[in-house]
């Protein structure tokens, strides 16, 4: 997806994170600030990269300020920010159903 404008998703509440995405200068630049960086810094970065890759985002400045969000929350916030920044709705057809 193409990042066309700056967009924000999420909050600074505990157990949440705030993701800000801006159009990049040709590369993917990720900045992470987290309350739990010592414990989960690497895994949070992986989640962000993985989510961006699955959405086909390759050119963006991404800033994540994490207040101890679970992995699934980080994923959802990044997805939301990307959709908002690209002006496109989330493509549900790519998502497989939960099968227990």
């Amino acid at each position: 997806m193409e990042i066309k404008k700056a967009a924000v998703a999420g909050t600074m509440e505990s157990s949440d994170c705030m993701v800000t995405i801006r159009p990049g200068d040709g590369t993917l630049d990720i900045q992470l600030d987290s309350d739990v960086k010592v414990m989960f810094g690497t895994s949070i970065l992986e989640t962000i990269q993985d989510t961006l890759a699955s959405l086909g985002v390759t050119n963006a400045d991404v800033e994540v300020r994490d207040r101890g969000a679970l992995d699934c929350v980080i994923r959802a916030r990044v997805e939301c920010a990307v959709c908002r920044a690209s002006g496109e709705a989330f493509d549900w057809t790519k998502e497989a159903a939960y099968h227990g």
Partner: protein
Amino acid sequence: MINAVGREIPEKIGDYVVRPYTGAYDGSPSTTPVRSLRCAGKTTSDTEKLTYSLEDAIRRVGLTDGMTISFHHSFREGDKIIGQVLLAIRALGIKNLKFAPSAVVNIKNPSIVDFVKDGTITSIEASGIRGELGDAVLEGLMDQPVILRPHGSRPRAIEAGELNIDVAFIGASAADEYGNATGQIGPNACGALGYSFIDATSAAKVVVITDYLVDYPCVPASISQQYVDVVCKVDEIGDPEKIGKGATRMTKNPRDLMIAQRSADVMAASRRFKDGFGFQTGAGAISIACTNYLAKHMEEKGIKASFALGGMTASIVEMYHKGLVRVLECSQCFDSVAARAIVENPNIVEIDNAVYSNAHTKGAMLDKLTFGILAALEVDTDFNVNILTGSSGEMMGGLGGGPDVSAGADISIVCLPIVRGRTPSVTKRVFTCCTPGETVAAVVTEAGIALNPRHRHYEELKEDLSKAGLKLVTIEHLQKMAESLTGVPQPIETTDRVVCVVEYRDGSVIDVIREIKK
């Protein structure tokens, strides 16, 4: 070497000789007569103890380089004494002091870090350090490791001659010019001064500091004139807002309320929940809510407690007024309702911290506790409890009386949520072991109640809880549940350098805290 809770500890840490922890009830007391630096004094009707200058007070007690100074923590975050005294000491150019407050100290403007950096303070012994000082210590601020002791261990260390206080600075919300002092009256009333009694009787010199001089004699008097060398009147000893305004508020967090209610249910299900039981619930958010739920159970079943112990809150005072508890034994007061209660009620009494918690006396009151509620940052699958260090290894709390209460109470209950944000608090191995698992009877969380199979009352409690229909889970279940939410954290990396020694109540070393690798 490896101690009895499986912690790797060095045999010697600088000058500090390590006695490894061998078991919760194993440590032997010192066999020599108890130590005190207190000397005889000489006074006449002409003796003038009062001064209006801290520098003058410090000069009069003869504080010099290399000595040990102490403070109590009854003014909590509202303390304005420690900063003023240290500034005066700095102005006099006195260096290389050992700073030995009775508990956690977290003062800002000035910060203790500044006094360490300029050499005023070179070693620290406390119950916990946090904030700026905690961060700096973990980054290797001090040459000497900080010695951390639970409440019961401090008077023990003093009487065993391990901690020798040269000058005790005792803040009092009211005092007379001859040194009779109290925390119970005056604009900055904080209630019990129980933590300073040992300082008053054991230090070589004692300075009472107050902002509220009363006519002689000051009544009530918690600190007696016979121990006091100098009385210093200052403008302000504290910030009443931060000392404890009104009643400590009940949490509204539904998760914490559920944990509190379950903890009270555990107590009420026990066969020991009967007339004459004793309890300590503490001051955490969950603890206060738990007190209220406990009161409800007592009212419903018509059961009355003989005593409540330790730090007092408005909720416990309310139980006293309802006739649910006969005596409140206060070593400290957590809010202004509790602070006032001692003067107003005959069976709400101020007690010495040593009689509350010292394991090496001829009787600590917490030995008589039926139930103890403990707060924690982390608990592990061996039931070991961490109340000092947070998820990044940072200094978060203080040992307080947790290790003491846990060992003393028949049924000690650790209450905590299994996760805080993304930080798991039921783990495979706590980062810092403060309270040994063998003393913990139960862990109560939002995700269930786990009993410790190694606890001396396990079979009994299991039977009682099953009868009451309380569902039990294993501690491993709670740990896995926490991990399934948060994921597996990366371990915190440390260097070999020990920055804090964590003593158990008997003075043995239960764990050490090492410098965090950057």
